[in-house]
């Protein structure tokens, strides 16, 4: 009975996932697609829970749904803000829409286009079926690396196996991954300057009040998630995401002091986590190997790294959401002169 209902639940989750994905990809309405995308992320988190991956579920809820959704929304807002008149065409030209339309005006063109689509769909379907049959028929009895993780868990200094893998056994991957985040921020900064909406005075007092209550709470949650990472689900990424969410909330509510944060402290904080990780890794070189934590200190060092990285990750994600460098960062000289 129990397993049957769970199976049913799984099926519902899966069907919802696929349906949502189909809808969000098919709908022409961008806003609807965003909303569907966020719900897609949440259902995804449910699926992770069902698949016994609480760490991933937390990360998905915080990052995949919690942060990516607002990212999309703010991007849409930004696009719509500049999207007036003839500029509307710029983005559509990415796919040479016009050409296709011209081709499809003729009957022969339309038929060929249709045939191409059928061919494409057929190809993909064949591929899908092929891969699925491989998954169904070719089964392997290898236990994966779980056995090794379990064997060496005690040496890793932490209790949670996922954290052990992330920060100790395969800490090098994680180091590079944090660098990916960092590069993303540098890239975003190189592209644009931050901007705030003009109507800061109109933020609802209720919103501000709620944010004032929620933000400290969220920071608390974030820290606890990071700390909890050593023995339960959680860790730097999840905690950082919650931290970022707090930041995003504050920014959306246009708290006045946020505009004034200068570039240098932000840069310091951004670099802090990666630098601590890298530095601790290198300091291990002194009497061992790169990223080889001395046995008794391993747990402490991992917690230290998680804290430092969690802070930086939070700030990184918030910066990604803001979508530009701080206003005082490398201003055009010409612009300054115009201003003065």
């Amino acid at each position, binding site marked *: 009975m129990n397993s049957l209902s769970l199976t049913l639940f799984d099926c519902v989750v899966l069907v919802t996932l696929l349906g949502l994905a189909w809808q969000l990809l098919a709908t022409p309405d961008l806003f609807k697609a965003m909303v569907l995308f966020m719900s897609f992320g949440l259902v995804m988190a449910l699926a992770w829970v069902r698949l016994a991956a609480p760490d991933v579920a937390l990360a998905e809820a915080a990052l995949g749904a919690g942060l990516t959704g607002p990212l999309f929304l703010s991007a849409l807002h930004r696009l719509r803000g500049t999207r007036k008149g003839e500029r509307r065409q710029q983005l559509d030209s*990415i796919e040479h829409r016009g050409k296709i339309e011209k081709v499809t005006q003729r009957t022969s063109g339309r038929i060929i286009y249709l045939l191409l689509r059928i061919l494409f769909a057929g190809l993909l379907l064949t591929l899908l079926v*092929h*891969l699925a049959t*491989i998954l169904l028929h*070719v089964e*392997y009895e*290898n*236990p*994966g*690396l779980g056995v*090794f*993780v379990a064997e*060496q868990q005690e040496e890793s200094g932490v209790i949670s196996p996922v954290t052990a893998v992330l920060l*100790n*056994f*395969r*800490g*090098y*991957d994680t*180091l*590079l*991954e944090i*660098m*990916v985040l*960092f*590069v*993303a921020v*540098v*890239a975003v*900064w*190189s*592209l644009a300057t931050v901007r705030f909406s003009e109507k800061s005075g109109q933020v609802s007092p209720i919103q501000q009040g709620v944010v004032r209550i929620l933000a400290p709470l969220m920071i608390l949650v974030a820290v606890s998630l990071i700390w909890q990472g050593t023995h339960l689900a959680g860790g730097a990424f999840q905690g950082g995401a919650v931290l970022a969410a707090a930041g995003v909330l504050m920014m959306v509510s246009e708290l006045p002091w946020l505009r004034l944060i200068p570039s240098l402290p932000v*840069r*310091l904080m*951004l*670099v802090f986590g*990666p*630098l601590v990780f*890298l530095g601790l*890794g*290198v300091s291990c*070189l002194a009497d*061992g*190997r*790169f*990223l*080889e*934590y001395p046995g008794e200190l391993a747990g402490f060092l991992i917690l230290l790294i998680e804290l430092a990285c969690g802070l930086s990750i939070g700030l990184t994600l918030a910066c990604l959401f803001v979508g530009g460098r701080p206003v005082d960062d*490398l*201003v*055009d*000289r*010409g*612009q300054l002169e115009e201003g003065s």
Partner: protein
Amino acid sequence: MPTVSASFWMVLPVVLPLAGGLLCFLWRQRSLWLPLAFALVNLIVVIRLTRLLLIQGPLHYQIGGWETPLGIVLVLDGPALLMLLLTALCGAGVTCYARGYFAYRISAQKQPGRHERQERFFWPLWLMLLAALNGLFLSGDIFNIYVTLELLSISAVALAALSGKPVAQLASFRYLLASLLGSLSYLLGIFFIYRSHGVLDLGLLRAVVEPGSSMTAGLVLMSCGLLLKSAAFPLHFWLPPAHANALAPVSAILSGLVIKGSLYLLFRFWFDTFASLISPAALNVIGMLGILAVFWGGILALLQQRLKLLVAYSTVSQVGYFLIAFPLAYHDATLSVWTAFLFMILAHGCAKVAMFMAAGTMYLHSGHDRMRDLHGIRLVMPLTVFAYGMAGVNLMGLPPSGGFVGKWLLLTGAFDDGQWWWSVAIMAGGLLAAAYVFRVMSPLFQAPVGASIFDGRPTPALLEWPPLVLSLIALLLGLFAPGIMALLTANGGAVISGGLP
């Protein structure tokens, strides 16, 4: 203790540029000499590693001290070291050139602030890219390779968009999507491989790999991703606009180094790790794609009006050559084909970097790169034109360049196997390359007609010498062959060392 010291040197090519990138971002005022120092130190480290390799043979290094099935291993063997060497050399060249490039533009004072900003963001991104490349070549773990690939492509995209032109941004957006698609395909491939054997380490994989549909599916997916990332023929659509519209040092990096990363991986997977899965049919398909790429890229390069686009299309064409090496390697997956492949990669890397740098200098001076209107530029910057020509010799595969050695080895390989038809394509491609190289040289040699509007300032040494030196290295690469062979055979004869025994 020798092992500690060896391991110490092995992580440095990754750690140093990472630290450099972080510091350059943090500490902007010093970012003028900081990257230069890091690039040079990187070169020194790699040279030191070369010595270690020659003395000790291939090196393996477990990060964090964890044994292989679980931990990540760095592997340094002949091919990896050569790639590191290429990266370090070109990296040092590009770093010098970029400094000169930005200094020249900043001093022009046309758009105040703009070029300073570009430079400040260029350094951290470039150092991160360098770290990613080094990590990629050293890595012995398929998932770690995925992470380095991501780091590589995200910093490459950011660099490509740096110029701020809408065209460049559009191109880099496409580049981003293409490389994301490639990464995801690669990741899906990892899934199929991990589920078959439960290991990620390349050396262990090579030991356990056996023909089976799951493994094959994984390899195919991974290869598709890598082919997309290296702009193999039908998947090359993103490359020319992205490479041609970026800033000159960035174009050099993208064309000379970045696509080499995925190409190298592809070759390594097919002929080392998963060699037992490869069938002749698959190799022939790849070879056919290569031929198509050679011709398609070459013909399109001939049709271009802009210098940088021409050079970008020539990259498409050259990638074809690397793919032609695949079918020829099948019967003889040993020394000679690895040598041919690596020679071509090294030669093309240096030559393409030099070529884009030279093209960039011409652009700086004339404010455009329409080939018709570049006549007489030889008198203004003879060294740059000379560098361009020498790099072109490499692409044509004329002696004594590295391209010549590679082509010779490919040709003899083709005749050895009795697959002489590839040779026709190889030669025809060389002629096409000659055609498009001299299509540029011809106007450059033309006597100036009327008053040409060149920027009157003298070309700084930093803009002239790096391309010249790199192109000369590429040109004389053939003569360094004994040294390169010594590196390749440092393992006592076998080229590849793979993972831990």
